[in-house]
């Protein structure tokens, strides 16, 4: 019941926001002081064009973890409707070309998973702790499982 509820909520969120990952946790300090490690971002993805200043979450080919950075340059093609985007973390000194696939100069629309529309501070620390200290994750899951099994309801 608990697992099913969580899954339904997640899938509903995916439908509402149009993004395959409606909530992400900030894992690095590249967007400080705006976003710190442990903040949770709410994403939204729609057909609106990508514009400079937006904070987007994008995937780089060959990297598992999506990156949250700010758009600093946009070139909107006339003929194809394609868009060339350059991003940068607020705290970083240089743009993100070093993060892209070697030889790639621009992001395109298909790399972008969503844009940030809101956030909550500190809430994501649970996820970070569980990722970085697997033993805590297993203890927590065991405790919850035990609780469910031994519940008298």
């Amino acid at each position, binding site marked *: 019941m608990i697992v099913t509820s969580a899954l339904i909520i997640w899938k509903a969120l995916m439908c509402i926001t149009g993004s395959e990952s409606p909530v992400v946790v900030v894992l690095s300090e590249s967007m400080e002081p*705006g976003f710190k490690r442990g903040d949770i971002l709410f994403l939204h993805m729609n057909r609106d*064009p990508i514009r*400079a*200043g937006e904070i987007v979450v994008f995937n780089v080919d060959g990297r598992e973890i999506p990156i949250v950075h700010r758009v600093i340059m946009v*070139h909107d093609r006339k003929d194809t409707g394609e868009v060339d985007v350059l991003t940068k973390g607020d705290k970083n000194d240089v*743009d993100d070309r070093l993060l892209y696939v070697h030889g790639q100069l621009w992001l395109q629309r298909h790399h972008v998973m969503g844009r940030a529309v*809101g956030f909550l*501070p500190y809430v994501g620390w649970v996820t970070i702790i569980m990722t970085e200290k697997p033993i805590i994750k297993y203890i927590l899951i065991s405790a919850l499982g035990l609780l469910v099994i031994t519940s008298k309801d």
Partner: protein
Amino acid sequence: MHSFGYRANALLTFAVTILALMCAMASVSDNFNTPTPSAQVQVLNINWFQKQPNGNDEVSMTMNISADLQSLFTWNTKQVFVFLAAEYETPKNSLNQISLWDGIIPSKEHAKFWIHTSNKYRFIDQGSNLRGKEYNLTMHWHVMPKTGKMFADKIVMPGYRLPQEYR
């Protein structure tokens, strides 16, 4: 029904619910703010205007940027990210947006500013379309709250033109 576990669970759930409500109310309260920011930019000098070996035009310019963004700040505002972008159209691209300068304003006292700077990021066209090109300078801001929904807006300042010749 009255075991310690149940009571702790109820208390925790109630606390988290109240916390979520407070965050939501803090975020909603931002909607009552009606900001009236102002901005001005003068391009004082074109320092450098050349075609790169790869065929793209590049410009470096010196600007005076002044703005009053104090009205963007509410009690829930953590920072305002402000940036200046050059925006123009070319035969190939319906919109080019190139950030020239950006800054983070941490508090209301810093939100009225005047700075003299050259462009922080390279102004490079995708092609060789910049000679004599008219462009807008647009001041964008992105209000980042302590919690909740983020807002963005801009002031468009038209009427800037690049030189006809390289220098």
